[in-house]
């Protein structure tokens, strides 16, 4: 009896340990045993978003076409939601267990390159010059380090545009969107009298402020040289006047009460809904909101909606017509993939997913692809989407801070800006905290 219990106990423990470790090995062995090329792909585009999101529609269509044209390449695909993707990808990266092809936001790129997680793609791209040169100027930049391209961009387009209700502005005497900050503050006061917020704003998920406001505003104040100097460690500081001024403008808007009061506790969806409900006269957001307006806004609001960008800042060094933009998210290849048939297949797949055909489809669905689609059928596009597309194409694209600055600096700005907008911190305090994080980052490369 006793022997039995011992054997049982040992057996149980042995199975529990073995079953935990054994699973993975078997899978790998099976995959390598066949001649078929297997590509493991993990990304954040989802079947359920086809038809709703131009990016998901175009990328997944490209993947389907690739599958049809190359039946002997097996693709093990994992589709995850945005936030789930970030969590899973970071855990896999820390465990050095990334799939063959995966999505890398620009802000992770430095980290992934330093840790040798991603493969430089120059040699492969050089074999396909036509594809390589099809990408819009600057879209490869945030995925490039020291001249080596580590990422294939998907969509580009500005993270800052203003969608505004022209009817509301004309009611208070502005036939066009206010052209200076003085006029804008004046419009804010007039709208506030009617109980309408100038902008609706929703930064609960942190990151909205940096991508849709701070990047574009700072560039208007400091010009692109400041950003480059920050990125290269060239002496620019976050405590410099221009950056503080940009944050100060946002703080002024919040203090004056021209934004919705619950600005830190609602997310971007609620922000857009406030605009749809007529509670606000405008909102700042990226090109991705164009299709939201087209599909979901009440008819009267959609008809009155036009698209523009922030006014220039008086005495600012940047181009007042610019908008933070460029590609933000990339497909990267695992550093462990060796040159050969598999890499060939991967590159062809990425061409299908992000290249010319996919780009045309994305543009027709209302997106702004990184690959220049050239002429496409604009007739299919709604007026607001077309306006957003044209504003995007016209805007001089500047760097999106959350994609370029190191994640440790980005996090501090994301957190501090909430305090500033809530009135518990000053723009100067934000600047100091950010500078501190930036210096820590510079000290520990």
């Amino acid at each position, binding site marked *: 009896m*006793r022997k039995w219990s011992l054997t049982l106990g040992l057996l149980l423990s042995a199975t529990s*340990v073995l079953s935990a470790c054994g699973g993975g090995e078997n899978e790998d062995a099976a995959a390598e045993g066949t001649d078929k090329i297997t590509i493991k792909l993990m990304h954040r585009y989802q079947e359920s978003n086809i038809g709703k999101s131009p990016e998901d529609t175009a990328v997944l269509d490209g993947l389907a076409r690739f599958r049809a044209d190359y039946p002997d390449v097996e693709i093990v695909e994992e589709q995850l939601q945005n936030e789930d993707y970030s969590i899973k990808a970071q855990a896999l990266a820390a465990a050095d267990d990334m799939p063959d092809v995966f999505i890398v936001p620009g802000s992770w790129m430095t980290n992934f390159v330093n840790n*040798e997680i991603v493969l430089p793609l120059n040699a492969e791209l050089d074999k396909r010059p036509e594809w390589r040169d099809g990408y819009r100027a600057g879209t490869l930049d945030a995925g490039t380090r020291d001249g080596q391209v580590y990422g294939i961009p998907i969509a580009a387009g500005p993270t800052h545009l203003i969608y505004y209700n022209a009817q509301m502005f004309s009611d208070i005497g502005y036939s066009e969107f206010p052209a200076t900050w003085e006029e804008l503050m004046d419009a804010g006061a007039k709208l506030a009298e009617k109980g309408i917020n100038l902008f609706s704003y929703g930064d609960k998920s942190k990151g909205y402020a940096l991508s849709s406001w701070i990047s574009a505003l700072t560039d208007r104040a400091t010009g692109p040289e400041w950003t480059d100097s920050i990125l290269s460690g060239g002496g620019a500081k976050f405590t410099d006047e221009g950056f503080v001024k940009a944050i100060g403008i946002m703080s002024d808007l919040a203090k004056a009460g021209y934004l919705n009061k*619950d600005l830190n506790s609602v997310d971007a969806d609620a922000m857009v809904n406030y605009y749809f409900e007529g509670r606000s006269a405008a909102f700042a957001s990226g090109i991705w909101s164009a299709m939201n307006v087209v599909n979901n806004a009440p008819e009267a609001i959609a008809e009155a909606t036009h698209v523009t960008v922030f006014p220039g800042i008086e005495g600012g060094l940047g181009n007042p017509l610019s908008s933070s933009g460029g590609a933000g998210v990339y497909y990267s290849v695992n550093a462990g993939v060796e040159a050969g048939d598999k890499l060939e297949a991967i590159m062809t797949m990425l061409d299908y997913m992000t290249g010319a055909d996919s780009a045309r489809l994305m543009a027709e669905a209302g997106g702004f692809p990184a690959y220049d689609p050239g002429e496409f059928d604009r007739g299919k596009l709604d007026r607001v989407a077309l306006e957003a597309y044209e504003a995007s194409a016209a805007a001089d694209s500047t760097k999106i801070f959350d994609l370029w600055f190191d*994640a440790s600096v980005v*996090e501090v700005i994301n957190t501090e800006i909430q305090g500033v907008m809530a009135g*518990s911190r000053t723009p100067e305090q934000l600047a100091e905290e950010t500078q501190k994080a930036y210096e820590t980052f510079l000290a520990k490369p």
Partner: protein
Amino acid sequence: MGKALRPKGWVLLAYLLPGLVLYSFVVLIPILAAFRYSFFSWTGGPKKQFIGWENYAEIMRDEVFWRSFLNNVLMTGYGLIGQVGLAFVFALLLMSKLVKWKGLHRTMSYFPSTLAPVIIAFLWMLIYNYNYGMLNSGLKGLGLGSLVQSWLDLTGPIVLLVSIPLSWQNIGFFTLLMLAGLSSINKEVLEVAELDGATGVRKAWYVIIPLAKPTLIVASLLCIANNMRGFEHVYALTGGGPGNASSVMALYAYQSSFLRFRYGYGSALAIAIITLTMLIIWLSTLGLRRRNQEGGVY
């Protein structure tokens, strides 16, 4: 257990082995690994750089971490009042003759404990909502329109506002715990107390509390441990905002590791959290025990 019936040491060990293996696999080893990582500057890839105690030195200087720690302590304070304290009052009410439909009250007060923290947070997000929230429309209905706030945007009382849903969720659990403890008090003692003229508050203070002390201590310790490792409610309700105003230690460690890619520092934070929590629990056990013993003299 008699010696004849007691299984041999190695048999006991063999029985425990599966559990121990699992436990070490999911608890002990990760903690030890975190301890090791805490000495590295590590951004999440194969490259790590040994930096000794540097991460810990940074924690000592890190205002955000200490603010989060204070928030945890504050939440624990609110928890002791709002969860354990109120639960005790509820339990007394449920024991008294004043309350009807005791079963219904017990079930209803326990119900929130069965919900996931994210659902609780979502519910309370709606309650606190500026435009459509129950709280604000209630205030307007009472003619107190001037008190209407965007509650979750307030930096001052934010920790209290986050603690309320937590209390709302846990109060049922602690009430049950108290009821179990109170029902073990000898009825005759209570009757005698009543005969001696101790009723209501006096009975509770002089008779029930001293007799229910062991239950109160267990409940308080559970409450402290719960609040020191609090994460879900804050994460879902405010994300630690506005700014860092409602940040808690676990949330900060999570952000450091997974949003700022500072895995080494995040590991050091995790170790600091374990140490601080154990320290606080140890101190409170010490305090509560001593008071318990003093009480025992009478």
